[in-house]
């Protein structure tokens, strides 16, 4: 039956005889029809070519020969010829069973869609979505209300004392107790960090992201920014990992896998690590700069400037094929709540599977750093660049710990601000540097995992030097221009 249908879609003259010849030459057993194998061969399908090479042995040369002969009859590639033929057949079938009514008036959905793709209205729409979705829902509700509840009510009050008790009673060695339930222990820090801080933030973010995703807004955003993104070596498609980066850069780095070329993946990874602040970072920045709108503007301008500049330079330096952009614009839809929950749950599961081990590793590293004295050594080294960018050396601790535990870095800077050790200018410089600085150890490890050890480390060294250089320049500019923010 299937065989008959497959046969009935005949190809034009020179192609059909070659197909039969190929079919006859295929002697091994394939799971799919030999005709399908022959068609895939003519379309230069790499996987099938490899499989046939392995299975046919000596007969393979003759098969290659036939493919080459068939191609000689056409000026275009055979995959094109075959696709055109299939398209014609599909259209013919569709025509016999489908009728489309043309309505004179555009439906509301379609008009809304056009509005979203309008370059002048699209911008404000984006701002509204960012404000309510990101700032209000993720920032205020997720990172504020939920984090406070889970961390204070559940972990600090119940889980941590319980686990500490348990470990202290059953694990004999002090050093191992520290590893598990110490100040930076796997349970008290790693697990708590993952569940009490990251979970509510990323869960609310993924929830908001799933809603935005399911409405079909993202491809419309991608088409709006494509030309701009081409300047930084990316295509509009990259808007998805970059927006996701506003939630969690580590997750977003993983999502760069969806970008089509290696060049785009590298540029996107670099920009995520450097200039896209994650939701935890933005929490810090808003806390520090919330009372200083002008400082917030300076911070935003510097970050956007760095984003464009580094993207532009990276696209000039990086070899490789230039990005092309093509994306389906699906119809706008009202998201289904069950889908949103399922999607959020799947992402969270995936996320924890990949990221939780990194938090545990971070706990182990802090533990090692503490007992070996590497930490106090690093803090002293960091004091140099910290002073260089015009900050008090006390900020060094905040920077280093912020790398391992974001809220610690925030609290550190916040305490310094409260103690009156930081001027408004210094806070802006600290925010710029902290944003550009590697966001967290999880992302460093993810960069290495995704981009390889050499590129991952090279990026980190570049970011380390670059972030402090920009901090230095901002400090210098503010001083020279005698600006008091």
């Amino acid at each position, binding site marked *: 039956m299937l065989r008959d249908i497959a046969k009935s879609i005949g190809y034009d003259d020179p192609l059909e005889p070659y197909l039969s010849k190929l079919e006859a030459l295929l002697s091994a057993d394939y799971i799919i029809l030999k005709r399908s194998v022959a068609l895939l061969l003519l379309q230069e399908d790499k996987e099938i070519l490899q499989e046939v090479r392995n299975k046919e042995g000596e007969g393979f040369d003759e098969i290659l020969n036939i493919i080459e002969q068939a191609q000689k009859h056409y000026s275009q*590639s055979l*995959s*094109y010829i075959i*696709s*055109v033929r299939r*398209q*014609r057949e599909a*259209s013919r079938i569709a025509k016999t069973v489908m009728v*489309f009514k043309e309505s004179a008036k555009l439906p509301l959905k379609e008009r809304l*869609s*056009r509005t979203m*793709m309008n*370059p002048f209205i699209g911008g404000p729409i984006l701002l509204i979505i960012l404000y309510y979705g990101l700032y209000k829902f993720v920032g205020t509700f997720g990172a504020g209300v939920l984090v406070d509840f889970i961390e204070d009510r559940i972990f600090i009050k119940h889980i941590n004392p319980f686990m500490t008790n348990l470990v202290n009673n059953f694990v004999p060695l002090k050093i191992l107790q520290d590893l598990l339930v110490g100040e930076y222990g796997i349970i008290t820090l790693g697990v708590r960090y993952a569940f009490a801080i990251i979970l509510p933030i990323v869960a609310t973010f993924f929830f908001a992201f799933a809603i935005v995703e399911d409405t079909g807004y993202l*491809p*419309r955003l*991608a*088409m*709006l*920014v*494509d*030309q*701009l993104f*081409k300047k930084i070596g990316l*295509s*509009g498609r990259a808007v998805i990992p970059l927006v996701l980066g506003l939630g969690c850069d580590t997750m977003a780095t993983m999502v760069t896998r969806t970008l089509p070329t290696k060049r785009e993946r590298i540029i996107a990874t670099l920009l995520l690590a450097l200039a896209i602040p994650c939701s935890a970072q933005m929490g810090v920045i808003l806390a520090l700069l919330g009372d200083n709108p002008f400082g917030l503007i300076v911070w935003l301008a510097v970050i956007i400037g760095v984003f464009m500049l580094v993207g532009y330079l990276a696209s000039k330096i990086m070899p490789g*094929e230039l990005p*092309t*952009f*093509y*994306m*389906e*614009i*699906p*119809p706008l839809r009202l998201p289904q709540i069950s889908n949103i929950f399922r999607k959020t749950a799947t992402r969270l599961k995936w996320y924890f599977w990949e990221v939780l081990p990194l938090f545990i590793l971070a706990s182990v590293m802090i533990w090692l750093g503490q007992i070996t004295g590497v930490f106090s050594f690093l803090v002293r080294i960091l004091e140099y660049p910290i002073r260089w960018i015009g900050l008090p050396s006390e900020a060094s601790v905040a920077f280093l710990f912020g790398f391992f535990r974001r809220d610690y870095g925030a609290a550190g800077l916040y305490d310094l601000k409260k103690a009156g050790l930081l001027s408004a200018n210094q806070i802006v410089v600290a925010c710029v540097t902290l944003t550009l600085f590697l966001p967290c150890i999880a992302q460093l490890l993810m960069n290495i995992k995704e981009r390889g050890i050499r590129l991952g480390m090279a990026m980190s060294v570049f970011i380390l030097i670059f972030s402090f250089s920009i901090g230095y320049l901002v400090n210098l500019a503010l001083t020279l221009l005698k600006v008091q923010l």
Partner: protein
Amino acid sequence: MLSERAEEILEALWIQIEEGKKSLDLGAIRDDPAVEELLKLGLIRRDAGHIHLLEKGKSHALGCCRRHRLAERLLTDVFEVKKQVIDEVSCKFEHLLHEGLEDKVCTILGHPKVCPHGKPIPAGKCCSEKKQKKPIKVVSALTELETKDKGQIAFLQARDKACMHKLMSIGVLPGMSISLLQKFPSYVISLGQSQFAIDKELASSIYVRLTK
């Protein structure tokens, strides 16, 4: 109907007139039967070593010249024939442009005024009739269309295989109906029952046969 050779001679005579000369030196065409043909029809006059265009022959000569230069335009602009062979091909092509074909070609090309060498193309009936209306394009790259233009995909001309595959993967194939919804900041096309956003590079690879 004039022979091809006779048309060539009329065209050469017209070029002489354009250049301000009155006659054409017979030289190599002294014994050409086409000269005889033209004399018989009363389109030219002959004296010692020259031929002259008569009033009656002028419209014929004008038409020959127009067809030649339109052919040149068509071959360069639409078919992208190489410069080296353009003369040779258009010399053959021009003779096919009779019976209203020349006006159709002229319309497709948007009533051009000069040939690729910069010489004037004599105006035809079609040029004065439709002067105010915008040129009717027949086949055009997607990037040249206006929003809301509709048509069928005529052919694809992609930079490389990868581009071609990208287009094919979203169903951009000859014969599909397509309409242009938006040009800025990206191209948005409606293809069958779906919509796609593509960049300029891909859009310029799609050639559309327009329908009104």
